[in-house]
């Protein structure tokens, strides 16, 4: 049974210092078992300027069991799957403790963006690139940040252009963007799955 009273306290605590931390946690559903975390990309990294959304779902044993977290925003990082958004981070697994909170976990995820651990990869392809060709890695990570983590600032034409550059037909891009209400991430997902 999830300790909802505690989750409630965590949300209050987190919203209290949102200005200082930039970390946001908002419930997706009324029962607080599914939430969305938001972290700003760390300054001085290829993720700077991006806003990253993380899907959070709380297992029954929370806070004894770790929260399940994965990136909803696409991100190019050795320890985050470029396809699924799965995160390789010890505190989300066997090093979790009830002494940690959603906020401290998200801060650790943010720290992971600053300090990739390519020797213990989640995404082998990205990790190889990070180790063998850092310049290309850094460029790709920045491009993904621009493309996926800053969508709200883009106009429709820019979104269309970006998706067309990825190799999709313009007409299909436009109709897909329309269908998902202009959300570029959703549109890309749809284009990829369709």
């Amino acid at each position, binding site marked *: 049974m999830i300790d909802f009273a*505690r989750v409630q306290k965590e949300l209050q*605590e987190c919203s209290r210092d949102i200005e200082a931390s930039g970390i946001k946690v908002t419930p997706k559903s009324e029962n607080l078992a599914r939430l969305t975390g938001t972290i700003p990309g760390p300054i001085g990294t290829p993720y700077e300027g991006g806003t990253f959304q993380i899907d959070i779902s709380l297992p029954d044993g929370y806070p*004894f069991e770790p929260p399940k977290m994965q990136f909803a925003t696409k991100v190019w990082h050795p320890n985050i*799957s470029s396809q*699924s958004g799965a995160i390789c981070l010890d505190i989300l697994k*066997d090093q979790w403790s009830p*002494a940690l909170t959603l906020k401290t976990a998200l801060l650790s995820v943010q720290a992971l963006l600053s300090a990739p651990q390519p020797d*213990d*990869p989640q995404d*082998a392809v990205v990790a190889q690139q990070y180790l063998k060709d850092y310049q290309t890695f850094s460029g790709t990570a920045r491009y993904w940040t621009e493309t996926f983590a800053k969508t709200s600032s883009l106009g429709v034409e820019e979104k269309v252009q970006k998706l067309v550059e990825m190799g999709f037909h313009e007409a299909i891009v436009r109709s897909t963007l329309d269908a998902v209400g202009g959300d570029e991430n959703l549109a890309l997902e749809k284009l990829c799955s369709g």
Partner: protein
Amino acid sequence: MQNQNQNQEGQLADGQTASEFEDWASFGDDDIMQQHSAIRSAEADKIPFLGDKEPLSALAAEYESGSPILLEKIKVLGDQYVAIRRTRGDGNCFFRSFMFSYLEHILETQDRAEVDQIKAKVEECRKTLQSLGYADFTFEDFFALFLEQLDCVLQGNDSSISHDELINRSRDQSISDYVVMFFRFVTSGEIRKRSEFFEPFILGLTNATVEQFCKSSVEPMGEESDHVHITALSDALGVPIRVVYLDRSSCDTGSVSVNHHDFIPAADDLPNSTSGGSVTKNPFITLLYRPGHYDILYAK
């Protein structure tokens, strides 16, 4: 520190296509977590968090076809101890043993002076955690649940419980895990508060800093306890603990003896305590240590 399974995952990926790796990457962690819980529930079927009181002969029976040295040692143990109570080997056994042993002692002795003593220490621990920057809501539920158990074992209240009920509660995950976590908070707080004292011991065990050690080896559930944990818990709560070691050590000297170590709380930091003049309490909690595991021992 990342766990070994991920390393294996990474190695596997080298010989496989990217899409196969993605399968591993997306499902591996959940699989591992599920496997962990499967192992835990398999363990749970074998023994509850807390077993029944068994005569020492039950311990000897375990080694019947095994080491004669250990059988000799168990015979020696029989001079001072009559019974054993096993705890589940899930990495929390030291804390679960301590929890039951302490509460059972209070239930049987109704030692209100000891209860006052530990409550004062618990308040100190609360202040320690606050001063270390822990948010109250992360630990307050665990503290409250322990204090509630403490009040329940004292008789004469509406909330007083029997020995049977204490056993039931100690086997109830929603109580036992909370108390274990309470002890983990207390232990972590004490180690961090006196980090310069504990640092050399921690460096002897691992390569970690005090901070890393607390984060990775004290605060997560299921992390096993070492002498550092026992020293810190004993000091923080002012409760002496005797640990009797049942292993193959000192077996080539002819006569068989069983080693023990008493963890005596560090002299109180009361301003007027005179050196060496403080009353040393004898341990009323005795745990049996076999490499990797703690159970409760009962003295004659």
